[in-house]
């Protein structure tokens, strides 16, 4: 055991620990993890961009994300055009799984259709409630198929979309057509 420090040294050590912790927290950790950036240093160093690509939706991520264009936060979804239609081509690399997501408000409908060039993929169409951190999600459809057509109405506001898993040795391109009230988030990192 080391010698007990003097009162002065102990106080000094505690203060130094506090100052370091507060500095690192405020300048680096909070900007990256929660997009809270009181010093502005996080934005300067490009750290807040990390927060915006995070899969969890931050409650106050709005302005920053709009500027950087990295993600579309949920609060923009209110201005979404009704009955937008989008066609996208999504590549699933060989032996990999990807997630493609949309931000949607509560009780909004999405009509969708997707197909591959013939390779069947395992998929899980599901939604995660906004602001939820417990990892909870609700699945609307799970199976293995090379195409699917359907629609769903969101039971809660949040992030909804597909997980596709490609177990083949070749990359697979999915053609996805969606219409409804949503904002595209796109590929999850």
């Amino acid at each position: 055991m080391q010698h007990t420090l003097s009162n002065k040294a102990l106080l000094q050590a505690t203060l130094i620990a506090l100052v370091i912790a507060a500095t690192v927290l405020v300048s680096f950790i909070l900007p990256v993890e929660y997009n809270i950036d009181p010093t502005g240093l996080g934005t300067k160093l490009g750290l807040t961009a990390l927060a915006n690509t995070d899969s969890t939706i931050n409650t106050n991520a709005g302005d920053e994300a709009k500027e950087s264009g990295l993600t579309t936060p949920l609060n923009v979804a209110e201005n979404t055009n009704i009955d937008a239609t989008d066609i996208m081509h999504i590549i699933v690399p060989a032996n990999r799984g990807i997630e493609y997501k949309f931000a949607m408000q509560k009780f909004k409908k999405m009509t969708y259709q997707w197909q591959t060039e013939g390779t069947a993929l395992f998929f899980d169409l599901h939604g995660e409630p906004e602001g939820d951190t417990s990892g909870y999600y609700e699945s609307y459809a799970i199976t293995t198929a090379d195409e699917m057509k359907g629609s769903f109405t969101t039971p809660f506001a949040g992030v909804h979309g597909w997980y596709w898993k490609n177990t083949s040795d070749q990359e697979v391109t999915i053609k996805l057509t969606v219409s409804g009230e949503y904002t595209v988030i796109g590929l999850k990192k």
Partner: protein
Amino acid sequence: MFFRYHRIAMIIIACCFLGLTAFESIAHGVDDNTRLFLQQNTGIQFFPFLYIGAKHMVTGYDHLLFLLGVIFFLYKSKDILVYVSLFTLGHSITLLLGVIANLQVNAYLIDAIIGLSVVYKGFDNLGGFQRLLGVNPNAKLAVLIFGLFHGLGLATKLQEFQLPEEGLWTNLIAFNIGVELGQFAALTLILLVISFWRKFASFQYFSTASNTLLMSAGMMLIGFQLTGYFVMN
């Protein structure tokens, strides 16, 4: 002057390391692949759960920091064995009971308490309690109690997956054994480094700085998790 210069350099390096790399690893829950595995597989999965448990411990910097603090001034293998066993006993109890009894604790709060355990141990290593209270609190009891909280943290993370009832006990025990294996692996590495370092005079010079940093890292964890609690809820 020489030592002062080195001390500052070391603090800076440690800060960069903690601030920039450590928090990139899995702070909350489990990574994507693991998550998908847990979603897609049911029934008894002994070795996968063993692996997940071990990985969680090896990459769980909060658990490792606490262990580092605990063994920092333990020189005898017997002492190390006793303390680590107490920690293991503590977190095994709450890990098993927590999942079985479906105990729901907020992950941010429990992780903040784990951060507190790191601060506690750093302060204790500096002789802070001796100075403040005039007596050292029972170190063995403290390790056991904080072990209980660490286990509750593990239980909370496992429960995020709404594990199927089928094979739950076996999977849990596999996870727990994995945690011990991971802890053993990590501990061996930490011990190697620390025993090597002890041979040099710098260990004594830097023991105060090291434990100050340990406290600081614990404070960062508390701040990080408490902010999460208020922002995400």
